[in-house]
């Protein structure tokens, strides 16, 4: 048995690699690699075994063997999404009689008699671009999978997925063109519904938020059989449902608030200039689009439910009270104390008639005025797991005397120079 194996191997070594997959002048045959042509000119290389599964099966049969989907599978929609190998005509651009060496075969690729003369078998000069042309021809249809690379600034929340990405401004309504408006996708998913007729009906659901970064904002949900249409419809729905929110100093909300939509709640906090948007990614996107630049928002409950989160947030924004409105409602001065100004009182809003007394029972703590009696749960900061390890304690004791030495050294160097 071992000797037979050896003999087999030695045989193959003598045979040229081209001829292992030799092409025979048979219409039903397959050429797997481009250059492997058998020329019937001088040296003819032939394999011993002239018949293999490549040769006694048609191209259709071989391809169906690779990409088979049963009838039942087809009903379930298998083999449609691109999980199956697509059939490729590997001989595209190749004709019998034409090859690398440009030969004229009368009867095969030319007439036998031209006019009154017999056409002779002859070799014409080779076409140097033949290979390149063939490659180009074969790859022409295959550019569908390649998309333009997305710059990191344009990326959404994750990968190339739509949520978080901008989809332009809404379509103009009559004369009004939505200049300065930006729309961002918050949710983009495929949803299914069982119908009586067709069975499973799949549609794209798209939830977007649009705004002009100057107080105007609106959200919209739409569904369509294809993704593009869903996005377009949602964009235009959002444009129709626009609301205006007056912002405090043009950068943040007027006060802290708490809003809940079903099982999704959000604690929103007013923050100073330069704080940024420290929020759930959906709320961050909404703020960017409306024009809020500094905010803290803690989402609680079902935080995955973006639609409910958005509704809660918009409800809170709608119910916001400006400082002047608050002053008029309560009859008290609204006074701002800033640490960077030595807490010098700056009267931000004065009521028409100011109250003279305030009862002790009244809770006038501005930070929790709009929480409706709720108290926010602040999770205590957990210590690192190694906090009480012996090695860590030892290190802390050693390095304690060098704390601040980095900055002290820089100061000393500055003084020396």
């Amino acid at each position, binding site marked *: 048995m071992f000797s037979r194996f050896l003999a087999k191997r030695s045989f193959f070594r003598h045979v040229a690699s081209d001829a292992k997959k030799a092409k025979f002048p048979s219409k039903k045959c397959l050429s797997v690699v481009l250059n492997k042509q058998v020329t019937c000119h001088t040296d003819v290389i032939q394999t011993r075994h002239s018949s293999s599964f490549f040769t006694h099966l048609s191209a259709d049969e071989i391809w169906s063997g690779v990409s088979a989907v049963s009838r039942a599978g087809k009903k379930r929609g298998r083999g449609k999404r691109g999980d199956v190998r697509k059939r490729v005509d590997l001989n595209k651009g190749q004709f019998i009689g034409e090859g690398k060496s440009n030969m004229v075969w009368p009867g095969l690729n030319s007439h036998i008699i031209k006019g009154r003369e017999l056409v002779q078998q002859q070799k014409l000069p080779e076409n140097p671009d033949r290979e390149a042309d063939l490659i180009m021809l074969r790859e022409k249809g295959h550019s569908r999978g390649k998309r333009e690379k997305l710059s990191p600034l344009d990326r959404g929340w994750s990968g190339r997925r739509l949520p978080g990405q901008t989809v332009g401004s809404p379509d103009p309504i009559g004369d009004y063109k939505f200049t300065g408006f930006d729309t961002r996708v918050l949710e983009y998913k495929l949803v299914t519904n069982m119908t009586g007729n067709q069975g499973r009906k799949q549609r794209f659901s798209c939830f977007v938020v649009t705004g002009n970064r100057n107080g105007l904002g609106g959200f919209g949900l739409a569904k369509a059989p294809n993704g593009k249409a869903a996005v377009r419809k949602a964009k235009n729905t959002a444009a129709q449902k626009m609301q205006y929110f007056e912002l405090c100093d043009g950068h943040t909300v007027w006060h802290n608030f708490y809003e809940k939509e079903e099982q999704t709640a959000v604690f929103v906090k007013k923050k100073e200039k330069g704080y940024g948007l420290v929020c759930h990614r959906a709320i961050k996107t909404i703020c960017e689009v409306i024009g809020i630049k500094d905010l803290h928002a803690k989402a609680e409950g079902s935080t995955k439910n973006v639609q409910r989160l958005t509704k809660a947030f918009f409800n809170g924004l709608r119910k916001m009270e400006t400082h002047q409105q608050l002053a008029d409602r309560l009859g008290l001065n609204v006074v701002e104390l800033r*640490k960077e100004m*030595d*807490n010098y009182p700056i009267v*931000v809003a004065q009521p028409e008639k100011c109250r003279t007394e305030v009862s002790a029972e009244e809770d006038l703590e*501005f930070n929790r005025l709009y929480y409706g009696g709720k108290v926010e749960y602040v999770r205590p900061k957990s210590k690192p797991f190694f906090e009480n390890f012996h090695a860590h304690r030892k290190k802390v004791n050693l390095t304690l005397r060098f704390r601040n030495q980095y900055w002290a050294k820089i100061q000393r160097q500055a003084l020396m120079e």
Partner: protein
Amino acid sequence: MASSMQLSRFTCQRLFGTFQSLTRHQGINLCHTSNQEPPPVDPGAIFIQPRVQQLLHNITGFDEIKLHRTRKIPRRGTPEIKLLTDDQLKKVKEDVIELSQTKLQLPPIMLPRKPVDAVLSRDTEIAGLEDAKHFFVDISYGIPERKRHIVVREPDGTLRKASWEERDRVMEVYYHRKGRKMTTPKMFESPQFEKLLEEGKYEYVLNQACAQFEPDSPVYIEVLKKTYDCIDERKQYDRLRTTRHFGGLAFHLVVERRIENLMVDMIQRNLIENVLDLMTLHQVVFPDCRSSQEHHNVSFMDKIKKFAELECREKDIIELALQTFEDSLQSEVRTQKQSTV
């Protein structure tokens, strides 16, 4: 240097014991050295008078917005919003005004300190045993700064009192003051100092100087003088208004008898009361000046004119400024009459 300042508390206390006995017997004046010439007039003695302090505070002004302007601080946080009645608001403002007063506290004016020159003993027997100076510092609790004993044992065996510079440095080691650096920052030396003055960063320089130096340090007095002279030259007095340094500036100019430009600046800004206060201050500093005799029932314009005549070198600019002020007053009165008509 650093190593020489290390000392066990034990040896310090023992030395302190012998030290005290020395002073009682030999009567060394710990604070001052004996001087041959008579001491100069101490501006600090005049400065410290309550009347002078009041006048200087009046001149400094009280612009709340400038005093509490936004400063860069680390971690400022979200501004706090409070809902207050009018009375509560008033109280909050009063509390802040108390803080403002500390911000406007005038740094003391003193004569430059005289160099310390007191050798306590010359023990040549122990000469050459050490190769570095040793500083002995009394770090007992509760002793005022100026009364702390700091002595130096030189390698040649001399035991002497530490000089003022050495005192400052050693005190900084044991009793660090916020904002003070161990070595004098280069910003007080040329060319950095001149550059800062050119850029007009007077308040910054003066604040840093206040933090770094003692009020009787000659370097500090020199820095103040240069800054004030620069401001006077460029007539940029307004930069120091509503800061703690304006009083010092005004006092310096009064002592130097160079108050003309400041008076003109005040008249131009319609601060006539400040002009009168400045004149009063001049009369306090120089009690035997010619304008001291008070004339009652004289209008303030005439008072200022008289003062300019008698005391100032350049009375013309003051008279010109007064003239402009008078004209503007009259035109205002005229426009008011026209509007009522």
